[in-house]
């Protein structure tokens, strides 16, 4: 069992959880993830390691409530334990001195991009961090990110935190203003990573995305997470999750992510009808 040390709601439906997992904390690298199971009846779901404390032996994850597992997770508190945390999984982000890079994040990616931005800055790069949200109230970790960035930009879909627009708009703006970006790192919802990749392609900026296909084991054993990159099938859990955004077949990814939509809706409905007291 793995004990929850800290639990905090960062924004509506976005939660931070710090978990005691000393072995994983010792090894965690930027860009890696864990696969958790809440309890005996739980599903295996992947979550990015947003931070770690090797001394304390803890890892931090930030998750968004979307379906049953994440809703159930949100009802747990400091002191509770979860059944399984496996990791660190996936190939770490490639940290190198490249020049100027844009680290971009939306949804849970606002947190997940942090370790990459931090390591890239430590490696001597100029780091421009850009985060996006639908609206201002969904933003979090601005101070944390500002600290590890040379330049920090926020953008919201409804303009409640100016400017209005999405990350792709900000990238276009930076380039229009004559600044150079050598590389983009993107983590967040699939749609954001896709539009980002589409925006950078004509600009000729290499774009690394963190794919979030549905996973089971996370060790290359089941093939559930397969994605098509550059025309070949890759397993996101062991060959990634980092891939070249310009090579990814986004349609296949988006389609496969919907593989269990009916079951997910049914499962969440049943859970909510049984647990409405806990939610309210």
């Amino acid at each position: 069992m793995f004990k929850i040390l800290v639990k905090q709601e960062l924004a509506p439906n976005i939660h931070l959880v710090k978990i005691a997992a000393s072995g994983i904390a010792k090894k965690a690298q930027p860009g890696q993830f864990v696969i958790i199971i809440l309890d005996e009846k739980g599903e295996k779901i992947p979550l990015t390691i947003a931070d770690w404390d090797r001394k304390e032996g803890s890892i931090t994850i930030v998750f968004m409530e979307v379906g049953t597992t994440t809703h159930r997770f949100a009802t747990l508190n400091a002191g509770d334990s979860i059944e399984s945390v496996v990791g660190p999984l996936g190939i770490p982000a490639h940290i190198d001195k490249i020049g100027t890079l844009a680290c971009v994040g939306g949804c849970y990616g606002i947190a997940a991009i942090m370790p990459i931005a931090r390591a890239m800055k430590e490696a001597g790069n100029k780091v421009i961090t850009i985060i996006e949200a639908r609206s201002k109230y969904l933003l979090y970790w601005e101070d944390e990110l500002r600290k590890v960035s040379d330049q920090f930009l926020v953008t919201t879909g409804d303009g409640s935190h100016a400017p209005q627009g999405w990350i792709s708009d900000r990238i276009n703006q930076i380039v229009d203003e004559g600044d150079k970006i050598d590389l983009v790192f993107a983590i967040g919802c699939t749609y954001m990573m896709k539009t980002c990749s589409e925006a950078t392609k004509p600009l000729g900026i290499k774009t690394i995305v963190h794919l979030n296909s549905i996973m089971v084991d996370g060790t290359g054993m089941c093939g559930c997470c397969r994605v098509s990159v550059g025309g070949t099938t890759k397993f996101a859990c062991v060959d990634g999750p980092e891939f070249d955004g310009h090579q990814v077949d986004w349609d296949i990814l988006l389609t496969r992510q919907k593989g269990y939509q009916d079951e997910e809706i049914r499962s969440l409905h049943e859970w909510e009808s049984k647990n409405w007291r806990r939610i309210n």
Partner: protein
Amino acid sequence: MAEPGKKPKKEKIPKQPMPEQEPAVRARNFDEVPFGLSQEAAMKEAERCLQCKKPLCITDCPVEVDIPGFVKLIAEGKFAESIRKIWETNALPAVCGRVCPQEIQCEGKCIVGKKDDPVAVGNLERFVADYERMYGKGELPPKAESTGKKVAVVGSGPAGLTVAGDLILKGHEVTIFEAFHKPGGVLVYGIPEFRLPKEIVFSEVNFLERLGVKLVRNAVVGRIVTVDELFEEGFDAVFVGVGAGLPTFLRIPGENLISVFSANEYLTRTNLMKAYLFPEYDTPIVRGKKVITLGAGNVAMDSARTAIRLGAEKSLIVYRRSRTEVPARGAEVHHAEEEGVEFYFLTAPMKFIGDENGRLIGMEGLKMELGEPDDSGRRRPVPIEGSEFELECDLAIIAVGAGANPLLAKTTEGLNLNKWGYIVAEPETGKTSKQGVWAGGDIVTGSATVILAMGAGREAANSIHKYLTLGW
């Protein structure tokens, strides 16, 4: 009830039938299919053994279980002695009795089988093991004095469990590292509940834990700790038993459609994560109505039969070769047919067809005919030109074999691999090219059987013991 003292003439005791769930009933549940022999039936079946002076049955058991020995003890009603006789060479008889391909091993050579049904060695092995689990006193075998040496076992499949059990009794400290949250390897994530109840596997693991074996779950070696780091942490030897565990895909169009699964995923979701109990359990599974399984080994039978239990109206096995080449255990093919699984032989999959939402709606197949024998001595299937045809389906399960998962090897320097990525190990000892590291089971041989993995584990344990007491 057989009377032990008074030996009946050997001539005619018929094979004692194994009582089992009716096909129509069991096709709708995940409970084990055979119920097991009664005490009376087991003793009667044991009477059928001729107690051969030169028992041929033993020669084809990979771990050379003393078959006439343990069978005689059953006939005499000495069940506790009987199981101890088996344990001398086989640590997991409750498992082997259920899943060994007996017809090509022990039972295949049984002399009684020349004219009649062979002695049901597997059923008898299962009987005494179950008897011990239910009525045994659970006393632990004696352990040798502590040697102070530490052994790490990577993977808790049959190979790893055997190594752990042998070495703990020889006085070494043993820690198993398992990637999943539950131990047992394929026995737990692959082979379905209706063929091997998980409770049996967990009771075996529990026995090892009571002996003092430490089990670290959720630990992917190569990620959380490397083999070299295990040595730095003070382990004196490492056994690698990580299984095959890399799904083979067909590389045909449409393979990434929704509802096209590898057998590994389909079975892991269902067995390990209990998706058949969704939504009580959180893990979902696609419940296909028309299901095609590709391949005809045990894995394919398990997949096709699972699909039936998950509500399929049609469960079809599509196989490139003919019926004679089917590699699955006879009992599984028989059970599958009884449950309504249909077979399409000499048919190769060409492509999967999807609808506008990316969901599977059909498969294109191609008819084959048998040509010249290939390297394996089996007649090679050759396509019949122009014989393409379409099969409707809403779920496809690819069960055409597994490869070597590279995760551990990639993170371990000095470990020699063969051209397919399997770890090279000495057949007699399990020694790898890296000092202090042994390997055995599917990661060395490629997908094989439980009993072969256990046999490899036993050899490796002997060799590790020698190394720890005498040197490399």
